[in-house]
């Protein structure tokens, strides 16, 4: 069934047991919404030098938006900001691929499970919600720490 290509088991697992959920201490906070379905996320980024020390979030929304925030947390925490930005760009590219890309598993790990979502234009925004919030929050956190640049 076509639906299984969107709702991969990995996605449903992240949805049922989200990683890193809850708001903790951070250097910057943003609130993003997806007006089409009302998905919402409040996300904080904590930097430790050039390393993403924590991404914490409170969110409500569909399985895709929830799972994607959980995968984001797995993938970027512990990486340098530069590495994490590369992952974010790879994920954005995958989501904009309209089902044409499978994603680079070396970089995206569990996030390649979202490849099927890219076929559903109405759901791409759900998958990107947390990632765009992270990008925004990171830019804010960096603005507060001009010494970190890479």
């Amino acid at each position: 069934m076509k639906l299984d290509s969107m709702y991969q088991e990995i996605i449903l697992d992240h949805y049922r047991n989200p990683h890193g959920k809850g708001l903790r201490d951070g250097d910057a906070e943003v609130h993003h919404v997806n007006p089409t379905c009302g998905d919402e996320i409040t996300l904080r980024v904590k930097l430790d030098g050039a390393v993403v020390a924590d991404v914490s979030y409170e969110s409500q929304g569909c399985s895709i938006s929830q799972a994607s925030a959980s995968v984001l947390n797995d993938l970027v925490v512990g990486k340098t900001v530069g590495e994490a930005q590369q992952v974010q760009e790879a994920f954005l590219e995958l989501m904009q691929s309209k089902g044409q890309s499978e994603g680079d598993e070396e970089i995206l790990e569990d996030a390649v499970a979202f490849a099927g979502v890219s076929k559903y234009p109405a759901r791409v925004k759900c998958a990107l919600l947390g990632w765009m919030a992270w990008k925004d929050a990171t830019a804010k956190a960096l603005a507060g720490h001009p010494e970190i640049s890479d």
Partner: protein
Amino acid sequence: MTHSHLTGLLDTDAIRKDFPVLSRVLHDGKPLVYLDNAATSQKPRQVLDALNAYYEQHNSNVHRGVHVLAEEATALYEGARDKVAAFINAPSRNEVIFTKNASESLNLVANMLGWADEPYRVDADSEIVITEMEHHSNIVPWQLLAQRTGAKLKWFGLTDEGRLDLSNIDELITEKTKIVSVTLVSNLLGTVNPVETIVRKAQSVGALVAIDASQAAPHAVLDVQALEADFVAFTGHKMLAPTGIGVLWGRQELLEDLPPFLGGGEMIETVTMGSSTYAPAPHKFEAGTPPIAQAVGLGAAIDYLSAIGMDKVAAHEHAITAYAIERLAEVPDLRIIGPRTAVDRGAAISFTLGDIHPHDVGQVLDEQGIAVRVGHHCARPVCLRYGIPATTRASFYLYSTPGEVDALIDGLHHVRNFFG
């Protein structure tokens, strides 16, 4: 499932043959189950034929033309106005203004009042009253008017059962109230509102009343004289007509007194470089080339609905809605947002399904060919009121069948298994 206990149903086998899109098959063999009628209706062959015939045989700009096509196009366009007037029991055809949709109709009322002279003028001493269950189209124009004039915006709240809370009507509608604008039927909750109570109160303080009939006109008899309101707005695409055509009905003496909003061709009497005088209503409010083919399509839609009879359409939808409410009760964890009986209720039913987000509910239903709408349905304050981010909404029309209700119920069980 047997449906023999349902009474008042239309001959949907015959009706569905008129709607080409209803025979579509989706996703490898699933027949389309179209339950998104509150967002927009499907169009019967008769309306599509009228559009084609207009463009193939009669296309011209309207009014002031001296050639055959111009006369035919004008007769068709103005004939559509006659059909609308009869459909809503308007005392005069000159009270029917064509707009592009209900949103434009409501914005037109707000702007007429913002630019009006006394006694209609909305200004810093005025109050505007709406309700918490309005579509954004009947909220935002009033917020804009309030911001621009300094008027105060007030609203009726909602009860836990999804009905208007009229308990503080005397505090809400006062001597300061200039306009009360309420929906006749909620697009999210399905509630049919007791507008007569509100109209009587408004009349007692000399306030005008606008009624958003977008979810009413397609589904039941609409009689603007019986409503006793001052303005009634609705939109064609929800009642079998094409997109791009809406209606504002207004009482004649008001339309004579109130100022135009948009200026342009068609709406004038004479123009000099210094100033202009305006055509009488309705043309005063129809600047520029109107949506001609769309109005003709609306006329054909009204012919179609009238041939069936709006009382029969209402009875059919009532039976389907009652059956749907009964069967939805079988689905574990399903909570209807809005009245849980079919009394004073339209054919839109919103619900939540346990913790499963509506976006996921809608996606899994779509895979089975079932089209529902998910989200806040342009009535976000209702979601906030009931503490939910969004709902799934199934909404029925004259071609909906009990079998489609059964398909929805089966689909919802499947959704629960999928995310269970």
